[in-house]
């Protein structure tokens, strides 16, 4: 009786819906983990059965044949470039849009608003042609910068809201004390804006790590493949060995989940920042 009173009407049905949907979200991933410890034949017999023996060796084998070391290194280079370029460009532009000291702020705001939703297809083909001429096809850094440019508008507006939180008086006081704009930017503005920069970095990192269309088009030749592309080609070459593919999938999923659990606040803030005005 007491327990029933504590919970509101409809508590149990709501819980059931939420749990069922959690199951649907996680079920394919649970199957992957389960089967990553099994042999190919075991998986074929029954994908739902528990492994009779834990074949941890599947992981080492997948890691080797999938050339994941090279793939992760390329992913780090690509995402690192995207993060640095994206954070620098979005925070400096966000500051300009927040302070409104130059007349072009309206035009720039409008341009970046329109660019928020520009389809990749609108610029990819001529860019591919230009990159070919410049010898940048297969260059992970160039692709990282491209992904940063494509995903620039949302970080700009996110940074702008951070800069707007800085009290005008603090900036003015620093200027009266004779600080240059650079000193104000470096010592007054940046410390307040740095949580925003971490959010922007997490979001750009996530997008660039997972990106498929640009990377698969621009990173031709296997040695330049990011981890996601390595896994795709592993899936192509080992399509007859499910244990390799499943342990490869865990290699792809596991780091992402760990990073997410560590940075979940930042990720969620970055995702909701564009749509929910806090």
């Amino acid at each position, binding site marked *: 009786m007491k327990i029933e009173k504590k919970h509101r009407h409809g508590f149990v049905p709501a819980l059931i819906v939420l749990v069922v949907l959690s199951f649907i979200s996680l079920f394919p991933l649970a199957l992957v983990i389960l089967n990553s410890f099994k042999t190919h034949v075991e998986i074929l017999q029954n994908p739902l059965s528990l492994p009779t023996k834990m074949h941890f060796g599947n992981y080492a084998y997948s890691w080797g044949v999938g050339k994941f070391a090279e793939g992760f290194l390329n992913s780090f280079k690509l995402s690192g470039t995207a993060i640095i370029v994206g954070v620098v460009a979005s925070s400096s532009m966000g500051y300009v849009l927040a302070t409104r000291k130059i007349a072009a702020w309206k035009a720039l705001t409008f341009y970046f608003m329109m660019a928020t939703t520009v389809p990749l*297809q609108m610029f990819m083909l*001529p860019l591919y042609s230009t990159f070919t001429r410049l010898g940048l096809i297969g260059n992970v850094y160039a692709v990282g910068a491209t992904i940063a440019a494509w995903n620039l508008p949302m970080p700009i507006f996110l940074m702008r809201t951070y800069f707007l939180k800085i009290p005008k008086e603090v900036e003015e006081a620093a200027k009266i004390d004779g600080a240059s704009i650079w000193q104000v*930017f470096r010592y007054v503005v940046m410390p307040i804006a740095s949580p925003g920069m971490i959010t922007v970095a997490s979001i750009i990192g996530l997008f660039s790590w997972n990106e498929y269309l640009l990377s698969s088009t621009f990173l031709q030749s296997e040695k330049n493949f990011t981890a996601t592309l390595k896994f795709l080609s592993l899936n192509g070459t080992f399509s007859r060995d499910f244990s390799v593919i499943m342990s490869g999938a865990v290699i792809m999923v596991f780091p992402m989940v760990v990073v997410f659990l560590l940075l979940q606040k930042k990720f969620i803030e970055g995702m909701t920042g564009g749509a929910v005005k806090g």
Partner: protein
Amino acid sequence: MKDTNKIKESKLPYYLLSIPAVALSGFIILVPGIQTIYAAFTKWNGISPHKTWIGLENFRQLFGDWVFWQSVKNNCLWALFFLVIPVTLALLVSVLMSYHKVGNKSFQIFYLIPYLLAPTTNAIIWLNMIFSPNAGLIGFLQKVGWDITSPLGNRSTALFGVAAVDIWHYWGFLTVIFFAALRQTPKDQIEAAELEGANGWQMFRSVYFPNIFSTVRLMMILILIYSFMTYDYIYLLTSGGPAHATEVLSTYSYTMAFSAFKFGKAAAVSLVIGLLGGIAAIFYTFFSKNEELV
């Protein structure tokens, strides 16, 4: 004179701070974007710098091609699926989460995990573990006697199969956004409605929904825009097949550019994607400008 000069702050640093973003977006988005518009009216193989002006010929060919119309139709269906299924689901679940209050942090994490994984990873997992007739769940159910086949192999169900995977990966993200918006519902409104004995539907209609309406509207416009550019899951799961059953404008354009090297015609398709998305983008700019431009 001297005094005003002193007070008047130099604008140069602000221009300098604009350079990284303007240069980056200018070289990578704006200039190639304009080139795409021009290329749509030319014959171009994508490799040679030479483009031959052919006027509206690319569009004339597109409008006469049934695959183009099939793609437009699929993009529209895609938009419809996404505007109905994930939006309804996310509204329902985010309201349930707000109402339920227990374990929300965990639910949020569970629902978001598929969204965090790369499309390649998710597609491979579904192809092998769910749809595969050998090792997947469907294959297993077949073996134990169910009458079930992979939806991807059938012309009439392939689009649903692909959309199911994309919705599986996407809906949690929408739920988290709606949930964040719902949490900003003023407490006194909720308490007042509860005191008056409002039931679940009444709570939703007169308390929660009005508070998250602008977020829902913005997300629906974004979904509409993204529906016209959708590519990853379709290309990874079916490559537009079987027999163009899941072809969308982006896969159509991609194949045209990188298999047939008809970059001009592919640019024309890109322009159609850009125009369809652009119409929705005007609404997006209109509804969010109140926040950014004042």
